[in-house]
């Protein structure tokens, strides 16, 4: 029997030891703070950037354009307290002189830049921007459509268009994202799922490594403190490994469930009403599937981490031995990050069925695109088979490794343990 009284005793100790530990409580609280912290920091950086004053001169030799620009650009909503636009009419032959005169102002940053609309703008829409840092994409995005509208108004002024026609001509196209689901529904889509997909892959990556490393340390502790010999006089190494893995995996599952409570509250209640752009189109089923997937992934990786821990008898050696495992977690994570921008790229599709890879990639894919249920089931079956195979191999390494002390074993020796 894989589960017996001894396994349960070990399991209980692991749960008690981990769940009530300071590090568990701290990490459980800290990770959400950290995640929100990143978001808040980004917002802070963006607003900080926004405080910088921008002083722009717009010059043209056409009086009407100048006055129109002056009207639109000095609207307080448009200037947002940081932009100052000064529209000037400069005769064609004085433009060069004007630029020359303001060169030092630009270099001393008294003027951020000069936008010059030559007369030819009415035929080719080419305008010039002079500045110390001329590739100011944010500025271009801000003024592009406004300047275009001024030019168009001027252009259509004597073309006998109705006001409605003119308004239509001035209006820009607007993208509205819709998601096509397997139920053939078409729903409006926000950014919410991209955030969830990112959240899923990050949490998987982060906690697999964190909890895995804890497991490894705990095995090394039992080995170096010689607890293992006392333990093995009471329980078999298989009992010990099973109890440890299950105890740690359940602790991890509880932690993950706590982290997902905000997502659960958002999708199942109306306590928080998110802006339309952030609406989450995932179901509670997706969340439960995610947790199940996480549990299987944890059991798989904890077996591997325990095996590596049993091979070495100090942290330094183990850190070196752990890199193949880290690769198994990191590569799928980077692929999962790629999914966030394009959920159906072919590498992601393939990786979501590859052992180990699917543990991180499939949930991320499922959160950001509609993945058929049978594909998710196949991925889970693959994960379960991987878990079983890893457990059998890990148990063999663990059994021999636990009592192996002294010099670091060669990988060829470890391979021999597998055969025994």
């Amino acid at each position, binding site marked *: 029997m894989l589960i017996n009284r001894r396994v349960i005793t070990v399991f209980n100790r692991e749960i008690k030891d981990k769940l009530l530990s300071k590090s568990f409580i701290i990490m459980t609280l800290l990770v959400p703070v950290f995640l929100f912290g990143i978001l808040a920091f980004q917002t802070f950086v963006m607003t900080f950037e926004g405080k910088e004053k921008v002083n722009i001169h717009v010059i043209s030799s056409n009086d009407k354009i100048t006055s129109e620009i002056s009207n639109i650009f000095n609207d307080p909503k448009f200037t947002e307290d940081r932009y100052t636009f000064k529209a000037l009419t400069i005769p064609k032959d004085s433009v060069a002189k004007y630029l020359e005169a303001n060169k030092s102002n630009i270099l001393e940053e008294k003027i951020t830049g000069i936008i010059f609309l030559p007369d030819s703008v009415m035929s080719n829409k080419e305008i010039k921007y002079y500045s110390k840092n001329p590739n100011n994409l944010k500025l271009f995005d801000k003024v592009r459509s406004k300047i275009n509208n001024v030019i168009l108004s001027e252009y259509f002024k004597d073309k006998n268009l109705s006001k409605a026609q003119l308004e239509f001509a001035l209006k820009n196209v607007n993208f509205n994202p819709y998601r096509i689901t397997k139920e053939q529904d078409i729903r409006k889509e926000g950014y919410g799922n991209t955030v969830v997909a990112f959240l899923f892959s990050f949490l998987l990556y982060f906690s697999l490594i964190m909890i895995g490393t804890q497991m490894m340390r705990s095995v090394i502790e039992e080995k170096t403190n*010689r*607890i293992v*010999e*006392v333990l093995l006089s*009471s329980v078999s190494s298989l009992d010990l490994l099973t109890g440890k893995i299950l105890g740690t995996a359940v602790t991890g599952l509880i932690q993950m469930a706590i982290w997902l409570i905000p997502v659960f509250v958002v999708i199942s209640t109306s306590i928080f009403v998110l802006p339309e752009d952030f609406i989450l189109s995932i179901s509670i089923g997706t969340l439960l599937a995610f947790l199940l997937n996480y549990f299987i992934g944890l059991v798989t990786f904890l077996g591997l981490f325990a095996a590596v821990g049993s091979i070495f008898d100090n942290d330094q050696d183990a850190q070196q031995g752990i890199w193949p495992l880290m690769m198994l977690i990191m590569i799928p994570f980077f692929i999962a990050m790629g999914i966030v921008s394009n959920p159906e790229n072919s590498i992601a599709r393939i990786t979501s069925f590859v052992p180990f890879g699917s543990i991180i990639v499939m949930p991320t894919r499922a959160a950001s695109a509609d993945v058929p249920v049978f594909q998710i089931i196949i991925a889970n079956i693959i994960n379960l088979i991987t878990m079983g195979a890893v457990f059998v191999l890990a148990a063999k390494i663990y059994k021999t490794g636990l009592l192996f002390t002294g010099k670091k074993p060669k990988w060829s020796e470890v391979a021999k343990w597998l055969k025994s």
Partner: protein
Amino acid sequence: MALLEIKNLSKSFGNLKAVDDVSFTVPEGSVFGLIGRNGAGKTTTIRMMMNIYLPDNGEVLLEGAKIGQDFRNKVGYLPEERGLYKKMKVLDTLLYFAALKGSEGKQIEKDAITYLKMFNLEDRKGSKVEDLSKGNQQKVQFITTVLHNPQFLILDEPFSGLDPINTDLLTNLIMKFKEEGKIIILSTHLMDFAERLCNHIAMIEKGKLILNGSLNEIKANWAAKNITLEYSGDISFLNNIDMVDNLTLNNNNAIIKMKQPNLEQELLKLLVQNDINVHKFIANDISLHEIFVSLAGENSTSEGSN
């Protein structure tokens, strides 16, 4: 009846034969001393008895059946290399190890407190193990070994790290367990303890069993041909005397092993003839220590000539 039978156990690590075809039986009601030098193969033998190592050859039988989990539950094992969870509290530690053996509940908790009182540790039951002194950690470790009231006790160097008072406490406990009918297997290199506590002895040297039997028999066997001598003068000539089997010299002390029993009169005559001043002459008695030294010593000489 032999409760525990060790049959033809062998174990190699690479080219090293750690245990080579070792067989012995542990009879009911015995305190069984497993003696030998460091690295002789005692711990490896014990680990195979505990099912921690799988033997290359041979088996361990409990009442005729191969040992398994059942034996593990009945055994209390104090390994030579001690280990406890450092961050765990003392009482939690005791209860955890008892629970692993299947002993749980109020009674075990009471027993744990009784043992803690006995070892003067009751006020430390809520302390973390790492906050205890090394000696106190040893005591906690010993309590974990006996708390579940095992039928078998396997103690690997139980006295190391204990002060004389606690050594006495432990010795008395072992005597008490012996009276209760527990079977105690004691591995030690302290011969006076082995001699005081054990009624059966097995000695392992370089993985091989070189001595096995009841302490009385062994001693009688050795004592009849044994003479312990304190003297002044040069007795190296004894090496060339026919009736002397072996001569172990240490300062002005000598252990003389004769080829036949009852030759002490002739030896004494010989010594007087050769003008040796005899200060002490003890025949027909031998300590386990002397047996050990002469056996282990013999072995290292033969190693030297190889």
